């Protein structure tokens, strides 16, 4: 039988001897950290949640899995936004309106991916696991009809169901709050913001890992060739689960910028191998596609990611603004080439309207596209009442 990690995933690829050694040592590290967490969680019990500096530091070293359900909820301000009954009413709506063409299509898309999401994992091979996955995704599709279902979302929902097993409602709410931390057009009809983020990554590689960018150019490799999966699934189906959870701890606690940090760190850690391949005149793409799956050493990855200096939010915003223009142009060209004109016009409008309206106003852009349209109470939507971060306020001013 194939070896599995503590979360039930088959270790694929098989960890190298060095990684296996790390994984053994890591169990000990986790035990040590757990003691500290137990103390802090004991102190926090019964008090309102405050994200202290000490807590932030501890989160950067990984939340123990048994505390993840509570911590993620606290960090996502779950209790502030949770509305009892909304999940059920969304599911009822899906049940009653499944004949509507747009909703019907989205639900069929969801159905198609249920047995293709972590198929090797026992939790999702069972009918109960798939039913939970179905309900999380169905509720999200109904909540944001203009976004519908985007392939990749099932991996996010499944990852959350591993934290909230058998509790689709919790998984739904946390997914809703988590995706609100991503750029607004991430899962939209043309995935505008995924394109933007990957362009931003290319620029960051240019700034920080010039040699790799040159190799990419020489090999005609684009960021979109290897990084789409990283961003769309927040690494969920690209990396070993422990590493994924460590990254998500940070996304939940600090926001989406960490995705760029991780991507750059991943490339940086594999820089020597990429350059070596190039020296031997080999193609670098297979390596670029493999480096995430074998990233067992989450400690080094996170340390490297957080150790990148001068990684400012304002830089990301500037790069995003520039990339938006390029992406809009590119997607336009692609759309014009398409044969079905009606469809394209619709898609393009959704993508660009949001973007144009929000240039220079990240907070506004945050809301657009994620605001659930007619069927929810707008005032109560978490996304609308999200406080602007300091950096966002600066960017707006």
């Amino acid at each position, binding site marked *: 039988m194939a070896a599995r990690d503590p979360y039930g995933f088959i270790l694929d690829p098989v960890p190298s001897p060095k990684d296996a050694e790390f994984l053994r040592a890591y169990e000990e590290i986790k035990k040590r950290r757990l003691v500290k967490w137990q103390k802090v969680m004991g102190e926090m019990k019964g008090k309102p949640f405050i994200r202290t500096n000490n807590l932030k530091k501890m989160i950067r070293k990984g939340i123990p899995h048994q505390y993840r359900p509570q911590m993620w909820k606290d960090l996502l301000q779950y209790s502030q936004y949770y509305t009892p009954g909304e999940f059920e009413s969304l599911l009822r709506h899906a049940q009653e309106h499944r004949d509507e063409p747009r909703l019907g299509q989205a639900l069929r898309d969801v159905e198609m991916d249920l047995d293709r999401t972590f198929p090797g994992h026992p939790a999702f091979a069972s009918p109960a696991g798939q039913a939970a996955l179905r309900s999380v995704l169905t509720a999200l599709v109904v909540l944001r009809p203009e976004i519908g279902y985007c*392939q990749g979302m099932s991996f996010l929902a499944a990852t959350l169901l591993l934290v909230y097993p058998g509790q689709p409602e919790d998984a739904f709410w946390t997914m809703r709050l988590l995706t609100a931390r991503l750029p607004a057009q991430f899962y939209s009809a043309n995935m505008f913001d995924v394109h933007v983020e990957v362009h931003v990554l290319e620029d960051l590689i240019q700034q920080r890992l010039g040699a790799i960018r040159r190799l990419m150019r020489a090999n005609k490799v684009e960021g979109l060739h290897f990084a789409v999966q990283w961003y769309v699934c927040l690494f969920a189906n690209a990396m070993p689960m422990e590493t994924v959870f460590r990254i998500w701890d940070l996304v939940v606690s600090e926001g989406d910028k960490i995705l760029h940090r991780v991507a750059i760190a991943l490339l940086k850690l594999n820089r020597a191998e990429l350059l070596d391949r190039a020296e031997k005149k080999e193609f670098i793409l297979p390596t670029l596609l493999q480096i995430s799956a074998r990233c067992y050493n989450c400690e080094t990855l996170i340390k490297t990611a957080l150790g990148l200096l001068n990684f400012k939010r304002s830089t990301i915003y500037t790069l995003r603004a520039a990339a938006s223009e390029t992406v809009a142009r590119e997607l336009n060209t*692609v759309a014009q080439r398409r044969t079905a004109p009606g469809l394209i016009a619709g898609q393009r409008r959704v993508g660009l309207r949001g973007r144009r309206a929000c240039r220079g106003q990240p907070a506004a852009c945050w809301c657009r596209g994620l605001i659930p349209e007619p069927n929810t109470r707008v005032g109560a939507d978490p996304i609308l009442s999200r406080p602007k971060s300091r950096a966002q306020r600066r960017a707006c001013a």
Partner: protein
Amino acid sequence: MAEPKTYSYKLVLLGESAVGKSSLVLRFVRNVFCEYQESTIGAAYLTKTLTLKDCIVKLEIWDTAGQERYHSLAPMYYRGAPAAIVVYDITNRDSFERAKDWVRELQKSGGVGVIALAANKCDLEPRRVPASEAEAYAEDSGCIYMETSAKNNINVAELFQQIAIKLPKQEPEPSPVVILEKPNVPGGSDGGKKCC
């Protein structure tokens, strides 16, 4: 005897979601089949070398994501690809219509010389796309047509083989091109201090 020449080609798989693109590629490259193949996000890349009668053909295969909204990525994969396999599921009429759209788009783009239409899941019932109709369509549009089953390993190797034979054999390009200008450029700031 002179060594047989090696030619490298890019080949892209296109088609509706869940018609079996990844399964076809995995059957061909690794001879494996999973009943539940994980959905492809973005695209996957695999290579396989075929030995033909008088030459060796190396296929660099791009297996793309099928969902409509990933469509905007497709040109990046088929641009510069001399061959494409458009896959549909014989038990799903819509996937055939979608396959026709793909063939049209590829022909419009002009770059892809060899297009194959793969009628996949031919082991399954009930069939919703008659073979005669698909075959006629393939003939009209100048595509290779083949009924395949990744599950039962029917016609998979044959499909790729036919494409390899049909590809024009020009002088092989030195591929891949790798230029290493400044190998010792420092990889940005490597500080231990945190900033955020």
